[in-house]
């Protein structure tokens, strides 16, 4: 077969000598353009740009023309019998013709582009910033797709058969299937999985497109319609196999079980009735996986889009809200979904509210309202109906970093620059739902970077994490700076009643609302961060050694759950410290990867039911 393939390829190449001459003539054009007096200013750049543009246009044109004619011309002119009356296999015929075409495409690319590339020297890199393997790979992929794709299309069109309607339907089905496979990954922001899968899908479809003509010629030989039917059968069977394998792979990625998950984070509703367990599945190439688990029974639901974009929990722990693309045809807008855990059979509920990828939102403490921030528009809606209650334009020059319900009817908006530089300020604005008015209440110095803030239940005061300054929640007036230096930005917090805590090495400092020291409590050595409060007077700390719960009323450590990473996220979208019920069942991961629960009051630990 190799001999026959080479004979065919040589015959085809002999036929295309004119193309090579045309390419050679075209290679001179950039030099001619550069010789024009008006273009002499930057001669190498002119040559580089002209050679690149002409080269690409010519190469893609040649790829298209060869794709249309490689078999299609012989088929249309009833000349395939010339080959089939000879001792040639269909595979040799196609491979020979395809190899000759690919050599032609590569050769004309070199002939047209290389002189310009060499003469353009440094200017080439400037003009074609993407130079290098990725650009070459992309252009090669485009040229191959044009060649093989147009061959398939030309075969189908030339048959003038009704089968082209089936091809169209199958093509639409294939595209929809591929989108359906990829979109859950895209929606879940798993582009590092979606991209290689898309590349593999594209490469596989290209392989199918490259190989299907062998079956086309073997099954159709000299007949136009039978060529079409044979090509379609091979093409769509091949693509179906590719799609099935890709779907299987994507399903396999997304079906990692909870046991064995490498846990990255645990987030728990305030009552402790539901736990979001997020991690990576080592058995699934580290695919991010997430479950909602009942820590008492171990009953769990898989979250279809791991790391639900911008998940929020209502303060009472009953409602969660998140954004998700609800259609792969419209993923520029994300729909807001809610789920009420109070309901017997809680289910995801789509709201009419949509947000862009950069939009921000906050749930009211009782989960019945949502405030959204998009560009400079702040809006408040009822949930789950999505009825708009109030909307106004922000006047701050800064992008919205955080927003929260100061009260049920007042939304407070924090704006700050994303960049890090000295002398930053943040803006505080308020949207009054009843009057539907938005007012800017303060511009507060925050140091060189906005690292978030934490506020009390009544939102009257706020602790700025960057500077450890306590400010008035509305006016931003500085009240005091913590007199101790916590171990990290997240080692200090404001409790719901305004009490302040700051963990330093071996000691937890407690301050009242006015930042007057009230207590110092010995805690285990190490660097602690404040991850929440239990009830009204206990603080939960996380360190490398484990979870420590400090009872502020008693002035002592209540218990330590060693070697465990508990719930909580450092960068909470809410400004209020997470508060768990006194009788909550807390959940954590015992190193290396064992899920455990413990009683929030006693610290008594047990395994999470699996």
């Amino acid at each position, binding site marked *: 077969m190799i001999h026959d393939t080479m004979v065919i390829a040589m015959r085809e190449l002999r*036929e295309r000598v004119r193309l090579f001459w045309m390419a050679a003539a075209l290679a001179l054009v950039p030099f001619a353009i550069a010789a024009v007096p008006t273009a002499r200013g930057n001669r190498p750049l002119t040559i580089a740009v002209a050679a690149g543009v002409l080269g690409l246009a010519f190469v893609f044109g040649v790829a298209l023309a060869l794709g249309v004619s490689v078999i299609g011309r012989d088929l249309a002119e009833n*000349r395939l019998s*010339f080959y089939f*009356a000879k*001792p040639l296999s269909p595979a040799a015929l196609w491979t020979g013709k395809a190899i000759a075409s690919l050599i032609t495409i590569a050769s004309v690319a070199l002939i047209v582009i290389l002189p310009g590339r060499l003469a353009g020297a440094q200017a080439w890199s400037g003009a074609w910033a993407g130079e290098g393997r990725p650009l070459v790979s992309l252009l090669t992929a485009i040229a191959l797709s044009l060649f093989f794709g147009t061959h398939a299309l030309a075969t189908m069109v030339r048959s003038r058969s009704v089968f082209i309607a089936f091809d169209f339907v199958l093509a639409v089905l294939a595209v929809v299937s591929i989108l359906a496979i990829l979109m859950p990954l895209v929606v879940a922001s798993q582009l590092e999985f979606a991209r290689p899968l898309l590349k593999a899908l594209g490469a596989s479809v290209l392989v199918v497109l490259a190989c299907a003509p062998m079956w086309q010629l073997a099954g159709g030989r*000299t*007949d136009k*319609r039978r060529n079409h039917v044979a090509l379609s059968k091979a093409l769509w069977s091949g693509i179906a196999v590719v799609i099935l394998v890709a779907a299987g792979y994507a399903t396999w990625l997304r079906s990692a079980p909870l046991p064995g998950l490498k846990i990255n984070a645990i987030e728990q509703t305030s009552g402790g009735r539901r736990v979001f367990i997020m991690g990576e599945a080592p058995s699934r190439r580290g695919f991010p996986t997430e479950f909602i688990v009942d820590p008492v029974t171990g009953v769990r639901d898989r979250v279809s889009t791991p790391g639900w974009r911008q998940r929020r929990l209502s303060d009472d722990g009953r409602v969660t809200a998140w954004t998700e693309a609800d259609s792969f045809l419209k993923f520029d807008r994300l729909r807001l979904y809610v789920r009420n855990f109070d309901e017997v059979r809680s289910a995801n509920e789509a709201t009419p509210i949509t947000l862009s990828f950069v939009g921000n939102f906050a749930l009211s403490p009782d989960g019945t309202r949502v405030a959204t921030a998009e560009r400079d528009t702040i809006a408040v809606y009822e949930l789950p109906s999505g009825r708009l209650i109030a909307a106004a334009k922000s006047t701050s020059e800064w992008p919205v970093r955080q927003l929260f319900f100061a009260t049920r009817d007042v939304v407070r908006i924090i704006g700050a620059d994303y960049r890090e530089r000295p002398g930053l300020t943040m803006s505080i604005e308020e949207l009054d739902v009843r009057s539907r008015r938005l007012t800017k209440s303060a511009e507060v110095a925050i140091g060189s970077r906005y690292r978030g803030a934490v506020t009390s239940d009544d939102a009257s005061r706020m602790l700025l994490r960057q500077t450890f300054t306590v400010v008035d929640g509305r006016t931003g007036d500085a009240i005091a700076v913590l007199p101790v230096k916590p171990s990290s930005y997240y080692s200090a917090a404001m409790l719901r009643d305004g009490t302040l805590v700051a963990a330093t090495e071996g000691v937890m400092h407690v301050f009242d609302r006015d930042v007057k020291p009230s207590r110092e409590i010995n805690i285990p050595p190490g660097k602690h961060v404040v991850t929440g409060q239990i009830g009204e007077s206990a603080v939960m700390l996380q360190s490398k050694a484990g979870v420590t719960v400090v009872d502020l009323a008693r002035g002592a450590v209540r218990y330590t759950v060693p070697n465990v990473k508990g719930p909580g996220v450092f960068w909470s979208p809410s400004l209020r410290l997470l508060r768990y019920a006194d009788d909550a069942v807390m959940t954590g991961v015992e190193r290396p990867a064992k899920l455990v629960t413990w009683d929030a009051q006693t610290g008594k630990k047990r395994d999470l039911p699996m």
Partner: protein
Amino acid sequence: MSTAIEASGVTIRYGRKTAVDDVSLSVQPGSVYALLGRNGSGKSSLIRALLGQLRTDRGSANLLGEDAWTHRRRLMDRVGVVPEEADAPPEMRVGELAWFSSRLYSRWAQNAFDERMDRFGIAQRARFGELSKGQKKQVSLALALAIRPELIVLDDPTLGLDVVARKSLFEEVIADMADRGLTVFITTHDLGPVEAIADRVGILKDGRLVLDEDVETLKARFRRIRVSSQPAVLAEANLVTASVRRWGNGTEAVVSNYDDLQFARMRDAEELTAADVTPLSLEEIFIAVTGEAGA
């Protein structure tokens, strides 16, 4: 190998249209088989199936003892083909066509090809697309014969050729046949020359093989009869008529089961004042069988 070509129940459909309908035939090695039929009768489809270029919807087509569809590649090394329409790429030069074939066939005879080109007066540098129709046929024939085939398939080889070119083409084939005992399968509308070389003839009508017989037997049983009475006398004499028409006050008929003895009995019994019998050419038999003028 008992037969050079064996078609058994070959049926070919294009959508709802049946081009070839349950055709069975066989061609003996070293013989000349002429497949006749009007345009659109299914000849080319049958040939494409016999050459393994078109899959049969039903039935089988064997060449040189092997299935034509499955073993086409191997078989084509032994089969020369002259297509109805010249199908070589028009931009190829005659010499390139020879070069191309020489790389693919195991028994390529360059000398034979060159010699024929010289004899036909065709330059090897000439592009195939620039040749006249007759020259294209001559090149195709030279290519087909230069592979030293065991079987040559000629699909209407004289189509569009002038009288001289037709004569030349048949002379080439006949000469080669005489030299090497070549098996020839030919379809043609040119029935005169083929009558002289064909051993067996098949007639396709609307995709069905309505006749498949040795030429000598065929010519022996077909006769034109002119009698001075009504057509009924022919039927009474058990003569099967392929065509009947009035002839003065009598009848002219082509009968397909002529027998001297039977004819003599009829003439004597009916006391016919005029009754004569003339043999038919292949063309006349074709017209009688297909019921239409022109092949």
